[in-house]
């Protein structure tokens, strides 16, 4: 059911307005199963808003989001069982230690205690959080919070990972660890969609890319198709239609 041609994630006409501002404007996007898709766009392009609608955290004004064919808003229980989520900048029950959060979430998902503890051990070790396993999350650094949230996304072995800025504030060594984990996940048949500002990272990891700006998907497809032979960064600036500023004015700076 999960294999074949059913998209891991599919947006159809997804729209969200905040007052006058149309944050996401009739987005259509397909994440093929087994693909590693990078969602890139300038600040305020609608990346977080789109991803929130894909995981059931934000109700769309119109349009649908489906995970392996299950509509997130019509059949939330089936859809949510298939995804692991790493949101950007949201709180955790921060007086709990990393291990306690994983145990809580595992039991909440109906997993057995033994399985949860064994997976939690492995996740904490691989993400190098085992040294801080008794420390409450309130005392974690930003990068450590990112890592423990990633662990919560992986714990139940989902089919699709939806990650919002997973590499932000993460140190280079941990970033390499996370890259390896995600690449193994995709190699084993999992699918990933993640948002980022960092083009070289997207180029290095992803086989698919979607460029989003002002609430619309401007380009999407296999990486090589979208960048058309040039570095993704150049293609991005071209697609978004922006002009890299910084050359004019400011004559007084360092004068």
């Amino acid at each position: 059911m999960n294999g074949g041609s059913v998209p891991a994630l599919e947006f159809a006409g997804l729209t969200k307005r905040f007052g006058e501002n149309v944050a996401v404007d009739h987005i259509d996007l397909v994440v093929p199963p087994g693909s590693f898709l990078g969602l890139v766009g300038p600040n305020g392009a609608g990346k977080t808003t789109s991803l929130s609608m894909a995981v059931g955290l934000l109700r769309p004004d119109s349009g649908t989001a489906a995970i392996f064919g299950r509509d997130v808003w019509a059949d939330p229980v089936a859809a949510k069982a298939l995804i692991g989520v790493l949101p950007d900048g949201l709180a955790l029950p921060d007086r709990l230690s990393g291990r306690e959060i994983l145990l809580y979430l595992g039991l909440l998902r109906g997993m057995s205690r033994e399985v949860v503890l064994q997976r939690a051990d492995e996740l904490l070790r691989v993400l190098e959080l085992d040294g801080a396993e008794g420390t409450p999350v309130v005392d974690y650094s930003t990068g450590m919070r990112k890592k423990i949230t990633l662990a919560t996304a992986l714990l139940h072995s989902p089919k699709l990972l939806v990650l919002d800025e997973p590499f932000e504030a993460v140190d280079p060594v941990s970033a390499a660890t996370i890259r390896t984990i995600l690449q193994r996940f995709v190699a084993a048949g999992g699918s990933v969609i993640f948002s980022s500002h960092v083009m070289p990272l997207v180029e290095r990891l992803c086989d698919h890319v979607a460029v989003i700006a002002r609430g619309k998907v401007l380009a999407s497809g296999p990486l090589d198709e979208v960048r058309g032979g040039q570095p993704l960064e150049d293609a991005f600036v071209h697609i978004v239609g922006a002009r890299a500023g910084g050359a004019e004015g400011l004559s007084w700076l360092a004068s």
Partner: protein
Amino acid sequence: MARVLIQMRAAIMRRATSGRRWIGILLLALLVTLLAVTTLLAGLVHYRYPGAGADVVATLSLGWLLGWIAGPLLTGDDAALRMDYFKLLPIPPRRLARAMLGAAFANVSLVFSLIAFAALIALGARSGVAAAFTGVVATALDLVLAVVASTVAVAAFGPTISSRRGRDFGTILLALTITLLSLASGLVPLIAKRLTNGHSPVLAAVVRILPSGWGAVAVDAAGRSDWGLVALALGGLAAAIGALVVAWPPLLARRLTMSARGGRRRTHGSAAAREPVLPLTPLGAVIGKELRMYSRSVLRSVMLMISFLVGVLVGVISALGGKTEGLPFAGLLFTVIAAACFTNFYGDDGTSLWLTLVVPGAERPDVRGRVWAWFLVVGPAGLLITIVFTAISGQTWSWPWVLAGEPALIIGSAGLLALTGVVSVNAPDADGGPSPARVLKTHLALIVIPVVTLFPAAALLAAGAAGHSLALRWLAVPAGLAWAAWLCRYSVMRAQRRLQTQGPEIFARLRPAS
């Protein structure tokens, strides 16, 4: 530079007071005016015991000075002019210190304090022109002391807002102040009686020996033409102000260069190592998480502490005055406060609701788990306080009252908390503390929760008391329980359904504006 700071503060305050907030500010202003006028009247009235007037005014001055020091500490900092704003500016600390101190004098609160401290002038006027003039000087010095002490206290004791743990300090202070204020209503008449009768030389000596009492000492001495003591007291006040002004720039410098206070790091033993006590189900997981949050979250522990202190001490204070009728109801008071404090289940946890929303079918165990955890934390304690205090009080008539009230209150509240938690969601304010709307909700809940949970039992008890029917009074026990059980079940089901259908909308209220 002080002018720039004053303009900046005025601009921030203008923004902050727009909209509905001004109603709260108006109410606060009314309350403070009332307190100020009461203080002034305390200086005007005649006391039979000589020196009692000075004692009373010294006590009230202490209250005002404490208010000045505690106020900004409670809001975390000067709510408008945060020191953190100035951390990166290349301004010498001494110059910034002078400017901030100057700006501190541009404060509306000074008007209220002037009315209050004018009690010193009123007190002096009773003994003649010289004493009245001494009162004028003392009033001015007290006002300056209040402003300077308030400014310095923030730099000395204020938490650093930037640290997540720093906020805990403010929360604890706020809790203690609220507790003390609510208990003061019981203690003040006692203290006032002792002071005006001249029965408590120790208390009088204490309030006079503190700097806040020196103004009153000077006015009292002027009335007796003891000019040496007048000079000593007023000179002492001036010296205290001088010392604080000298201490202020280095304190500010330390504060500006201080990084987030790195408190002790507490670690928690591994949950895996312990034998599980709770069922290994989604419901058990939520109860376990919630019980840990009750014991570790400062906000939650402080709210439980306030409930306990107020609930128990109000009865105990009146019992010390010889009235034990209130003792049996200590458990009920504790439970009502503990319920009112936890009417914001989802709001207080902030955006961590996302964890519940992304797990399929987690809404039901989440609502139930929170209800169970509150019930397990508050219920046994409330019941124990009720039984023990009723037994010691010797008020045997009260047994049907408390046994009908306490269980119904615990069970009914548990359900109401779940429903209130999903219907009225108040996100924490920018500093992570409770928002004004959340505080208002807590106060309303103090009235609404007992009324809703207890009215069937109360009606039977009242009818039983009026008709002298013991049977009717005891009937209130099962009737109260039955009502509370239905209320709890109904509220929990409604709460579950709302979280299931409105989860993203509730979450949107917790998320900073997108």
